[in-house]
């Protein structure tokens, strides 16, 4: 019984993933845009680092790799929602979803996994190849994304990235649920991505924020999306002390999943389906 349930969810992920992989032209345009953006960011960072001789909490080499990873994994951040789910909520077709013999939260969570991974795969692979191999080939060695120090670091990065994906999906689910609660959650969903952007470390790597803010920055949930996996990759978080950070990622993911489930169940109980 439970295994057929499980395979149904796997089917949801893979069908949706393959569907989203079709948008290749858009992905190419996205790749060029992210590349351009990455170049601007790197030049700005070079200029800032040139201004100061003091040792910084993060070296410019680490920052450059951090920026490229960020450009590659952009699609994984929870700053958009599933357009189909949004349309269903708007039109009321969401009631059909309730008829399916699946758990709604898990069903949507699976769709969200596909949403967060498909666009990311299409953009991340060319970006990583270009930043790691292409840039040194054209002579921009300083600009290149460096490979991780060793295999264990890479594995730790992959694990942490998996946790970041769970966290991102759990948070995207919260955005979906907010939309079920109130359609005017639209305004909220426009503002949230900006918060995510700043506090994940996407705009400026978190270690570069003022020291007095670090206490807060270390505990807040969005750090698990970008800052933790990327700093593990660059070695800025040493392997020995990576475990608590990964645990924090999982903790926040669990909190968001719990919250999202509760809110979804609550709103489904109150939902009135109009006939016709």
């Amino acid at each position, binding site marked *: 019984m439970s295994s057929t349930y499980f395979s149904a969810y796997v089917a949801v992920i893979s069908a949706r993933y393959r569907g989203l992989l079709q948008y290749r032209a858009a992905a190419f345009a996205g790749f060029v*845009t992210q590349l351009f953006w990455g170049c601007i960011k790197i030049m700005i960072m070079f200029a800032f680092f040139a201004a*100061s001789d003091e040792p910084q909490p993060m070296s410019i080499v680490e920052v450059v790799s951090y920026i490229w990873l960020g450009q590659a994994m952009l699609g994984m951040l929870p700053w958009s929602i599933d357009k189909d789910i949004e349309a269903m909520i708007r039109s009321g077709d969401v009631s059909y979803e309730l008829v399916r013999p699946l758990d709604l939260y898990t069903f949507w969570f699976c769709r969200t996994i596909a949403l967060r991974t498909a666009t990311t795969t299409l953009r991340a692979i060319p970006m990583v190849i270009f930043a790691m191999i292409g840039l040194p080939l054209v002579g921009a060695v300083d600009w290149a994304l460096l490979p991780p120090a060793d295999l264990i670091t890479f594995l730790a990065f992959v694990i942490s990235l998996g946790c970041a994906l769970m966290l991102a999906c759990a948070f995207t689910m919260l955005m979906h649920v907010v939309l079920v609660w109130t359609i005017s959650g639209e305004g909220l969903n426009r503002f949230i991505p900006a918060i995510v952007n700043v506090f994940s470390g996407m705009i400026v790597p978190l270690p570069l924020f003022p020291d007095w803010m670090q206490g807060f920055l270390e505990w807040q949930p969005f750090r698990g999306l970008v800052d933790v996996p990327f700093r593990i990759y660059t070695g800025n978080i040493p392997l020995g002390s990576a475990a608590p950070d990964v645990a924090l990622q999982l903790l926040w993911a669990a909190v968001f999943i719990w919250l999202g489930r509760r809110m979804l169940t609550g709103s489904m109980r109150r939902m009135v389906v109009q006939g016709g």
Partner: protein
Amino acid sequence: MDSTRSPEGARGGFAENVALYGRYISISIMSQMQYKLSFLLAVVSQLLVTSLGVLGIWVMFSRFGSLGGWGLHEVLVFYGLVNVAFAIADALATGFDRFGSEYIRQGGFDRLLLRPRSVSLQLLGHELALRRLGGFTQGLIVLTWGLGHLDVPFDPATLLFTLYIIGCAVCLFLAIFILQATLSFWTVESIELMNTMTYGGVEASQYPMSIYEPWFRHFFTFVVPLACVTYFPVLVLLGRDDPVGTSRWFQMLCPLAGPIFLMVSIQVFERLGVRYYTSTGS
């Protein structure tokens, strides 16, 4: 009546066009004001979103102190100016921005061609996006904040020169939007690439151009003359010499590249694009 039907009058006189644009815009504003709360939320959320962008700049300055000889307040002037100009252009150019999706793909362009008025005028009249007020206000606050903390005299000359820069920058951004619309005669996809010129251009010119690599700077000076409407004239405003070594005359006159670029792009749009256009027929 007759004059509008004769070939010369087909595009209308100047005063008539201005009146028509005014009418388009007043209708657009009225329709946006139908949903006051939603409008207010959009403005406020945009204000907050753009404010977080400044947070990034502040973080970097609090960590590093300066940027290649530039201080925080000087960078804020660059930031404020380009964002004010972009917000205005973005508000004006909604019709061009959505040209590919709404007019070409859905065939609405045929309707515009049937009317005896300039296509560009009708597209400009598509909407005046008031929700851009958020970005505009935020840019203006940052600009005055930056200028207020610098030794820039607050007099009519400064004000006029600032308006001159903003006007020219608006022209340039409008031109980019129009070129983007022109591109959609050929392809409705890959419009995202043009975002590197608009949003990417804004991002780049939030910082003084002198910090960038020469190839990048040259691209934004000679290909898409964004530096001409932001970086160079702001040097005059701030009373600073160019680390790259351009003359004051050049810095004062180069913003005119904006209006020139705009005139060229309108010509390209109306002649090349419209001639190429074949309706989808739907």
